């Protein structure tokens, strides 16, 4: 017989173990599906993990993929702390890429690097932030569910990019492919030799994580975000301005995703192209990155690395095993289910009691 009992405490150590259990279970369960297609799940899992973390090349790729996750993930930490469900990081990232193209390829192409690149990042932040304000306003003024609005914007922005690369921004030097022209050399981000790691963005990400940690825990606005997210009634009792807080949340969240977009464009792809190639699901994956880090920006650095590896695994699944990259969504989905259920496991424990027969 098992009984469900309310917990009296839940320590950080217990939290850590719970997360590990979630990860292990999700890995096992998602690899099981390979069984249905005649593959040995253990083999698949091993191949994925060794490729991502076991070789020098793998680690470089993992780090590369973790860069946008750090930025988007940190932004989502801010949003989720305020219980604002920003599912639009994908689109906000793309707007950042658009801004990078606009500034780097068109407006500022003659500016020297040390002015152009920071300018691109600033505009990327602003682009993502402003786009993020739309669902914020819709929520506060019209009480419209932000999940739908942020998602709809994703689709709208994706199509905007398709329009640009097939239309007015189509490159003259790209042999008819739907790419913009390549960004000029002064708009490109420097890279660590022998890898694809565009380290300026990585450094920005690193400092942003620290900055946001500081913001959440040691500033007034961070405090207000926490109270609004954790207990809106208490926020009202305290006299906190909901509109202000929501706008700030989305400015930061969208803005950071925008910075990630600049990084992807100016560091990896060097031209605007099919939206999915640029954003690659980073916006959605970073949702889990944010949750897995316990909504702690410092831990985002770690969970970004882990998920960077998962994404590398997705590439492996595609190249080595021939399955679509989308397969990793099985793992992502299972992780999110566990995270949704975690409320239960944090507050209750299951005890097995011997039934006494009298």
């Amino acid at each position, binding site marked *: 017989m098992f009984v469900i009992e309310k917990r009296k405490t839940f320590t950080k150590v217990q939290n850590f173990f719970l997360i590990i259990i979630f990860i292990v279970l999700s890995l096992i369960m*998602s690899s099981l*599906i390979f069984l*249905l*297609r005649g593959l040995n799940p253990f083999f698949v899992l091993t191949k994925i993990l060794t490729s991502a973390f076991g070789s020098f090349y793998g680690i470089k790729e993992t780090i590369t993929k973790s860069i946008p996750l750090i930025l988007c993930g940190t932004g989502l930490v801010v949003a989720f702390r305020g219980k604002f*469900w920003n*599912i639009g990081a994908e689109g906000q990232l793309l707007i950042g890429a658009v801004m990078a193209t606009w500034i780097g390829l068109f407006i500022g192409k003659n500016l020297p690097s040390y002015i152009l690149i920071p300018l691109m990042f600033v505009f990327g932040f602003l682009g993502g932030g402003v786009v993020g304000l739309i669902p914020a306003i*819709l929520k506060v003024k*019209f*009480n*419209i*569910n932000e*999940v*739908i*609005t942020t*998602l*709809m*914007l994703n*689709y*709208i922005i994706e*199509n*905007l990019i*398709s*329009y640009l690369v*097939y*239309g007015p921004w189509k490159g003259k030097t790209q042999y008819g492919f739907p790419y913009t022209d390549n960004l000029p050399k002064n708009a490109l981000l420097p890279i660590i030799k022998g890898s694809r790691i565009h380290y300026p963005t990585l450094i920005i990400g690193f400092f942003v994580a620290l900055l946001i940690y500081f913001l959440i825990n040691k500033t007034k606005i961070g405090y207000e975000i926490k109270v609004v997210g954790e207990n809106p009634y208490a926020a009202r009792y305290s006299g906190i301005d909901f509109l202000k807080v929501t706008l700030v949340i989305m400015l930061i969240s969208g803005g950071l995703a925008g910075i990630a977009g600049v990084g992807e464009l100016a560091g990896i792809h060097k031209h605007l192209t099919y939206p999915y190639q640029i954003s690659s699901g980073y916006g*959605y994956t970073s*949702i889990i990155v944010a*949750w897995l880090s316990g909504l702690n920006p410092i831990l985002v650095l770690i969970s970004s690395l882990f998920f960077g590896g998962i994404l590398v695994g997705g590439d492996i699944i595609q190249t080595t095993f*021939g*399955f*679509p*990259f*989308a*397969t*990793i*969504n*099985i*793992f*992502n*989905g*299972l*992780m*999110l*289910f566990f*995270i*949704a*259920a*975690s*409320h*239960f496991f944090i507050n209750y424990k299951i005890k097995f009691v011997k039934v006494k027969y009298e």
Partner: protein
Amino acid sequence: MNENYILIYSILKRAIISGTPLLLATLGEIYTERSGVLNLGIEGLMAIGAVTSFGFTLITKNPIFGILIGILFGILLSLIHGFVSITLKGNQTISGLALTMLGIGISGFWGKAYIGKSLSERISEISIPFFEKIPFIGELIFKNDPLVFISWILTILMWFILFKTKYGIIIRSCGENPLASDSMGINVNLVRYYCVAIGGALAGMAGGYLSNVYTPMWIEGMTGGRGWIVIALTIFSLWNPLRAILGAYIFGGIYILQYILQLRYKISPNLLLMLPYIVTLIVLILSYEETVKKKIGAPKFLGEPYQKEEK
């Protein structure tokens, strides 16, 4: 004159066909939300319905069986969301997103084997004799594939059950006031499970329609965000099955409008592809105004897990 006649007929016909999967899934989500549960996983459920029904139709060469399988898998997967939301009282937004991701992941993986394959057995249209001879309307309404007719029957049936029977009162009470419902002896959580399953079944059916009738093949990502539009349509329909038809066909029409605008006015297809999503945003804003005016809103306790008080 004849040309315009054909044009309008085509638009309306395609609007019905495009709108049918939207209608089916919206009907299901209406029941789910009326009982108090928010299911954001429709996109994933439709994908699962599409891939499983395609696969089984391919193997068994029986599209009816294929769609039934799509319905089955829709039910099974929606129950995961049900378990996490209702019994474990987890956050329904996160759980719904999880379902979407899971559905997209499984269907992408599973569907790899089906890419490029086409169905030999297709569902053929049914014509209702005599009525189909009526000019213009005849072929539009009385000659359709069976799932269109089923969607109409379901609309009326589900509207009737929801508003004219005791079952409907029970479902609506669970979403409006679970505490009062519980005090009247109703098992709120069980009712919610049923409604989540109904939502899953219809989303699966909608997916099956997409891969068996609409574009009878499997393409990764073929649900194209329809699941999210369904969520918006549920709000636009003011949680009333009859109104869902209106919303579904308007959106069905938008898909067709894209082609028309592209052909006639040479507007870039990519800009036109934005149309459904922009319209969704507009629809949501308008719905807000309407819910304020008509004082009809979402079920009061939508998205809130029901917790019995401790004695």
